[in-house]
Structures are given as C-alpha cells and as structure tokens.
C-alpha cells in the first residue's frame, strides 16, 4: 500500500476519476495522529491491528517490519517433530494492510529520536510519530559462549527466531544418522518461552523415537530447574525412557565453548560432547533497536509501567513482548498478544480520548510432550504499584488421566489457530 500524500493523490485523482471528493479525506489523513510500530511479531502485529481496527481509521498506523511473512516461534517445535509444515506456522501481513489500513514498511528501523519523536529506517525514510510501539523481540548475547556467533549458528542453529533457523535444525535432524547425539543447550533466565527448550526436547525425542530410535539427546542446561519440570521429566520417563539426559547447571551443564568444525560442545564441568546435531540457544537480551533507542536498563531489557507497558525511560513510547521487563509474566507469544491489547487501549485513550479500563493481562503456555499428550501452565495478572503481579495461576498435574492430556493437546491446536487469527487476520 502506498502512502497517501497530497501530491500523490492529486497526481492520480484525474486517472481515478475521484475528483475533489477526495480532498477532505486528504486533509483528514494528514491530521490523523500517527502510531509507529517497530516489529511485526505477536506483540507488534497485534498492536497495529487493534489500534487500526478499533480507531476505525482515526489513527494512522505504520508497521515497520522487514519481513513479508512471520513464522511463529511458538509451535515451531511441532514442525521440528514433523507434525506441522513450516507454511502452517507462517503468516502474512496482508490482512492488517487490506482490512485495517495498516501501512507496512518492509524496512528496518535503524534509529529512534525519542526527543524529536522520529523513527529512521534503513532506507533513509523518516517516520514521525505521536506514539511509538517498540516490539523487537529478542537478540542473542553472542559473546557469552566461546566460538558461538552468527556464523556458528549456521552449523549449530539456535532455532529460537523461527524461520530459516528452524528449517535448518529440522534438516539436520532429518540428515542425522540413527544412533547420533543431539545436544540441546537451553539459555539462562530470562529468555523467550521458558518451557520452549523442554518442549523441543520432548518433540525431537518424539521424532527420533519414530525414525532414529538408537539416538540420544543431551540437554546441557545452565539452570538447576526449569518451567513445568516435573511434567516434562515425567513425560520423558514415560515416553522416551533412556533417550534423554538432562545435565543441570549445578552438575556443570552450562555450555562454555563450541567448536563447529569438530562439532563439539564443551561444558562448564569439563565434559566435551561430540554432537551429531547441536541446538545452541544463547543467552538473550532485548532486540537491537531497543538498545539503540536507549530504552533498556543494565539488565539488557526494557523497564515499563505495569499499567500501560509505557517505557519508563522515554515519553510516548511503549515496549512490550519479549523485549520488556514484565516481571512475573513470561516472555511468550500469548503474553505479548495480551500486553498488546492493553497498549492499544491506552493509545486510543491518549490519542482519541476513548474509554480506558484497568489493565488486565493473561498468559497460557501449552507444551506438547507426545502425540496425544500436552500440558499447560498459565496465570492472570494485574498492574501492581511497581510491577505486573500475579492474580491467579494454574498448572497441569503429573497424574492427570490420558483423556485430559489428549484434550489439552487438542486445545493447544485450537488455541494456535485462534491466536494467529487474532494477530494476523
């Protein structure tokens, strides 16, 4: 979609035969408040859609996202298992543009001037804003593991930004010999999708058990405990007995060095593991542009106001999703989508005077552990004085009957279809 400018429009009116009828629209278009959203993931795309849709065109919404499509990191483990295609977890921005009038700049944000309220793009274009939404997701701390950088990720994929990396890991698993060793190295806290590496362990085991049953998985963890631990370990025991070894941080499980030529992984405890496939997920921080815009604190993440997800550092800027410090809320697609709705409401309130309601947040994370078995964890949250606080929470139980687990598995699929429609349709 091209941008509506007075010059562009006057140049085309004769051809279109619209005549002067369009003139008031042009004037209105130019005076509309502007929202710029950086990042087209679960957080950014939801804000863009909700602001554009619910303001009924009264707010001009620009989405800055270089990619034409978005492959969700959530559900990418099901692709690794061979259960889903990559296409089935890849979504387009076409509805946001055509149904709601969002202007999609397929460009990279390279700078933000929060004083002058302008975003600069790689192409040199400048986008002024009344409200800026920064939702860049995560970046990796490549300096943390010796030998692991962007180039090494082509041999030992992190597959923690979905798309090419996920396809690479899947191809390596398919090419691996039966009897090989898969190393999975989860990151230290905080990181995107806390149960993600352990769901991945379960689903790679699911694939290996069916196709390469002599293979093994070694999980080299810097942590001593992890999300839904009892549920995952119970599933590993029941479905994949003898296939999965988990080395916690206290037993020297942290990966300190990799050698992509030798395909070896060196652990803090001194062990050197020869891997057939190595999935190294490095420590994380907020996406690059958040640092560039000066929105991060010493932790490498962005402090926010719990009632609105507004930046605590810069005025008229919101940070949400994985890049934000949402205290008890995990970094998840569900959480990002939930935060986005509070941000969209706050933006409409600030720019149009629409009604404002108290912030409410929610998260649910489903994790599949076997063909007909999934578990879930979730919580409701509210804005406390200084941070987002838990109101209520739940988690699946270890001794649930199989029909409950099968129902949870079906529920996860239904959720995925709904949330991706909520974001992209």
């Amino acid at each position, binding site marked *: 979609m091209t941008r509506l400018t007075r010059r562009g429009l006057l140049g085309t009116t004769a051809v279109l035969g619209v005549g002067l009828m369009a003139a008031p629209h042009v004037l209105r278009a130019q005076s509309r408040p502007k929202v710029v959203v950086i990042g087209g993931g679960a957080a950014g795309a939801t804000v863009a859609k*909700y602001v554009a849709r619910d303001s009924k065109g009264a707010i001009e919404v620009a989405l800055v996202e270089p990619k034409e499509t978005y492959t969700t990191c959530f559900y990418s483990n099901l692709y690794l298992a061979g259960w889903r295609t990559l296409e089935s977890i890849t979504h387009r921005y076409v509805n946001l543009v055509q149904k709601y009038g969002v202007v999609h700049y397929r460009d990279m944000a390279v700078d933000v001037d929060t004083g002058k309220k302008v975003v600069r793009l790689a192409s040199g274009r400048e986008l002024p804003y009344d409200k800026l939404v920064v939702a860049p997701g995560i970046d990796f701390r490549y300096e943390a593991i010796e030998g692991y950088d962007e180039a090494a990720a082509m041999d030992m994929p992190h597959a923690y930004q979905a798309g090419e990396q996920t396809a690479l890991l899947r191809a390596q698993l398919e090419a691996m010999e039966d009897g090989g060793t898969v190393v999975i190295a989860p990151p230290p806290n905080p990181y995107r999708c806390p149960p993600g590496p352990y769901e991945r362990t379960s689903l790679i085991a699911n694939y290996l058990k069916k196709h390469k049953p002599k293979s093994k998985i070694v999980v080299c963890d810097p942590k001593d405990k992890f999300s839904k631990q009892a549920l995952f370990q119970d599933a590993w025991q029941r479905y994949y007995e003898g296939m999965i070894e988990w080395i916690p941080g206290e037993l020297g499980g942290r990966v300190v060095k990799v050698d992509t030529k030798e395909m070896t992984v060196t652990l803090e405890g001194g062990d050197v593991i020869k891997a057939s496939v190595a999935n190294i997920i490095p420590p994380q921080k907020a996406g690059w542009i958040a640092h560039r815009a000066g929105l991060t604190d010493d932790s490498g993440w962005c402090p926010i106001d719990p009632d609105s997800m507004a930046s605590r550092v810069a005025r008229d800027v919101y940070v949400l999703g994985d890049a934000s410090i949402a205290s008890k809320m995990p970094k998840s697609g*569900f959480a990002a*989508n*939930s935060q986005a*709705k509070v941000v969209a*409401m706050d933006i409409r309130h600030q720019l149009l005077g629409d*009604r404002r*309601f108290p912030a*409410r947040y*929610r998260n*649910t994370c489903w994790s599949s552990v076997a063909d007909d078995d999934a578990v*879930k964890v*979730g*919580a*409701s949250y509210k804005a406390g004085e200084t941070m987002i606080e838990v*109101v*209520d*929470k*739940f*988690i*699946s139980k270890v001794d649930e009957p199989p029909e409950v687990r099968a*129902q949870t598995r*079906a*529920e996860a*699929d*239904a*959720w995925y*279809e*709904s*949330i991706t*429609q*909520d974001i992209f*349709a």
Partner: protein
Amino acid sequence: MTRARAITAVLAGSIFWWMVAEGRAEGDPAYGEYLANECTACHPPDVTDGVIPPLWLLPTDYFIDALRAYRSGERENPVMQAVARALGDEEIESLAAYFADLREQKGGS
C-alpha cells in the same frame, strides 16, 4: 391451550426474556468488548473444527452460567477456571452483553 398451559408458557417466556434481558441490561458492552480481548486469544471468531467454541454463538444465559460454574470450580478446565476467577459479576455480565450484541450483528438470534 388450557389455562394452566397458557400460564406456564407465559411464565417460561417471561423467565427466558428476563434472563436474556438480565445479561444485556446490567452489562456494559463497551467494557465487555475490552474484556473480550482476553477471550479472542483462544476463542475463534467463527465456527471451526477445533475444540474451543466461538463465544458469540453461546446463548447469553448459558454463557453466564458457564462462567459462574468455572468460577466456583463446578466446571472443570484449569484455563477457564483461572479466567473466570479473575471476573466479577459485573465483568461476566458485560462480556455477556458484548457477545449478545455481536450475535445480533452476525445475524444470530
């Protein structure tokens, strides 16, 4: 129609309309619309083959009763129990009012 049947029919009709009206009169659809944003993360906008139903399709009284039953723990599903425990009567009625409006817009009865 006998007199008793007529009275029964009138009563049943009144109760039905009272129940429908209750959800609409007391709830604030604008508040319900905001609250419904929590629902759309899981509930689809239209009928699908999935196990999660579109909410506008549920009759108002059923919708209200179901949320209250989840809230009390009488109905099972930990996700919905946690959702419902975060909702007061005002929130449940506002959601019901919003979904009733949505049903009308979609041409349902």
